[in-house]
């Protein structure tokens, strides 16, 4: 049997059976990829920071804590199976193409401060 000479256990342990054939692990069969979201302080958005490889969500969370929660400030983490995320295809990018022309959708046109100042003034009188 021709063993892989790599010192990396993840590589040489792939040849587990006597015949030397690599063991095939199908996508999602044992281990899954989980996306990790990091929250810097309470009330803040969870931001995507990367992913971990784990057999279940509980262990994904356990791994995520050391992968992504041990350096900068962190108060909470989310994990979600990457396969559970639904996304558009890259070729559908054209759906978003005209966004820049539709400036009337920007919230910047509202003049709230004027109203507030008017209200404050009326209170003083």
């Amino acid at each position: 049997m021709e063993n892989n000479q790599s010192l990396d256990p993840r590589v040489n342990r792939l040849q587990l059976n006597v015949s030397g054939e690599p063991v095939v692990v199908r996508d999602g069969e044992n281990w899954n990829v989980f996306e990790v979201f990091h929250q810097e302080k309470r009330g803040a958005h969870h931001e995507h920071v990367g992913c971990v490889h784990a057999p279940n969500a509980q262990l994904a969370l356990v791994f995520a804590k050391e992968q992504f929660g041990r350096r900068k400030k962190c108060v909470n983490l989310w994990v979600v199976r990457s396969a559970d995320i639904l996304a558009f295809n890259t070729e559908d990018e054209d759906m978003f193409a005209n966004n820049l022309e539709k400036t009337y959708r920007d919230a910047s046109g509202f003049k709230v401060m004027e109203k507030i100042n008017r209200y404050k003034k009326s209170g003083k009188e």
Partner: protein
Amino acid sequence: MNRAINNLLTAMADDALIQGHRNSEWTGLGPIMEEDIAFSSMAQDKIGHAWALYRILQEDLNGSDPDRFAFLRNEKDYRCCHLAEQPNGEYDFSLVRHFLFDHAEAVRYGRLEQSSFAPLQPLARKLKGEIKYHTLHANAWVSQLCRAGEDSYIRMQAALNRCFPLALGLFEPPEEEAELVATAVYPGEKALQEEWLDRIYNILSPAGLNLPAMEDVTPAYGGRRGYHTEYLQPLLNEMGAVFRTDPEAIW
């Protein structure tokens, strides 16, 4: 009185140091990258716990420099239990040992938050979060591996059978324990062991693992009195090798 506290803290610190060193031997060899990082990180935490206790010995009890104390003692002067001394073996053994060890830490430090020996209170509060993560990690692995097929389950039960008598050595009473209990430094090893058994039972039972019956096992005592297994001396040789090349060096 100081002698009694000294014995207790030395035993706790030596457990953390030796267990931390053993766990660090997995660095780079863990079963997967994520677990390698998590396990190494927790090994570092344990060395940190040992250091914090050696510092208390130095500052509050006239002890010597933590590095010299950690690396230059004779084997007989260490107070660690036999559980921590065992070579890593397979990952199942290391995981079950980590599970039993860290639940014992959680119980011990939990009670030390109310210790009459003041320096232990802030330390116990500070380590609470770290130890909580350690037990969460261990619990997650125990429940995962007990449901991962027959081979996995059999290995976990075998590792538990082997670790359990060794783990009882974590609760070997230190010298002058009665004095520590009487002065409310801590509640004593028997009380800690009872609480620990409850805690681990609550995780092991849903996982389908059976704790060996108490009357069938002999606790691995001796470590607290300086009697060690054949595995400690080689570990000490390796752990202190760099330090001993120049004990006066400033790092």
